[in-house]
């Protein structure tokens, strides 16, 4: 079971000054309003955020519903845009493993992998005893998911009061927040190269394939950054 003390510790860690809560809330308000505008009802909107909990995937789903794309197309497009969650999971979960934790718990807890919770955990894992890191992580994830779901519902209900300019304003908050985070993470040669090359290759590969650009660009950039960083000792 989940150790409540560590769960709560994780849950309240979303309150920090550099917390992604504001950006998370703003972007899911925009998603909630978008869901309302394309004809989803409130149950479907909440259900979608609860089950998917990854913003670019939800955006693709919404756009696919508008143009009437097939389920297979939706699956592939979402998988490609959210495949970044794979390296994110691998760069986080080895920090959380402990033999006392049941395996099934990891498969459930991985649903909380999304950039906001991932960042909080990356920053705080050292302050938590290894045995209880998974419980702490579940707390962090639950708090972030709760913010996302509440924001979706809020966005859904205020959709008619949001004009076009306000929606555009909300949509930029999340990317700007994460760009700041990425710049803040550029502390070693390896990390700096991963961030800079990632954005460059992401754009270059867009001209090769808009669907595959994140995956191919990210993979190429990350691999270059790794080797250059390793050969320079960072």
């Amino acid at each position, binding site marked *: 079971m989940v150790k409540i003390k560590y769960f709560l510790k994780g849950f309240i860690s979303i309150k920090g000054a550099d917390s992604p809560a504001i950006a998370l809330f703003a972007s899911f308000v925009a998603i909630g309003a978008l869901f309302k505008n394309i004809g989803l009802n409130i149950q479907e909107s909440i259900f979608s955020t609860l089950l998917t909990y990854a913003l670019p995937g939800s955006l693709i789903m919404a756009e696919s519903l508008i143009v009437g794309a097939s389920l297979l197309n939706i699956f592939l497009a979402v998988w490609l845009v959210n495949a970044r969650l794979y390296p994110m999971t691998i760069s986080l979960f080895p920090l959380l493993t402990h033999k006392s934790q049941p395996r099934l718990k990891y498969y459930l807890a991985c649903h909380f992998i999304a950039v906001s919770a991932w960042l909080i955990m990356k920053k705080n894992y050292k302050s938590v005893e290894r045995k209880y890191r998974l419980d702490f992580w579940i707390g962090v994830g639950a708090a972030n998911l709760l913010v996302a779901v509440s924001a979706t519902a809020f966005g859904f209900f205020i959709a008619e009061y949001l004009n076009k300019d306000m929606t555009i304003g909300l949509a930029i908050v999340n990317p700007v927040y994460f760009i700041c985070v*990425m710049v803040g993470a550029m502390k070693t040669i390896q990390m700096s190269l991963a961030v800079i090359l990632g954005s460059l290759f992401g754009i270059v590969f867009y001209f090769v394939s808009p669907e595959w650009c994140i995956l191919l660009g990210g993979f190429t950039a990350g691999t270059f950054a790794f080797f250059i960083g390793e050969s320079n000792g960072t």
Partner: protein
Amino acid sequence: MALNIVLAILVTSLATYISRFLGVITSKKIKETSKIFRWFNCLAYSTLSALLARIIIFPAGALAEVDYLTRFIVVFICLMMFLISKKNFVYPTVLSALLLAFLSSNF
């Protein structure tokens, strides 16, 4: 609930969960001190950067309605704000929404 919407939601969730699930399976064998862990760390940051660059340069949804120079100016100003404010996250994020809403309604 309309069936096609529910199916689309389920398909989206499944396509998203797969990467998380496979990540857990792979990470079982990876030690945090290993080189492969550092490589995946680079991949995580670089794919996130690629995604962000794509959102800003080739956006989908609401952001596509403002031209790219406007988006670029807003990101640039907010990034400067972030660096000047000694890496405060609140100022640039709040500023970004206000600035883009203002520019989009006036220009």
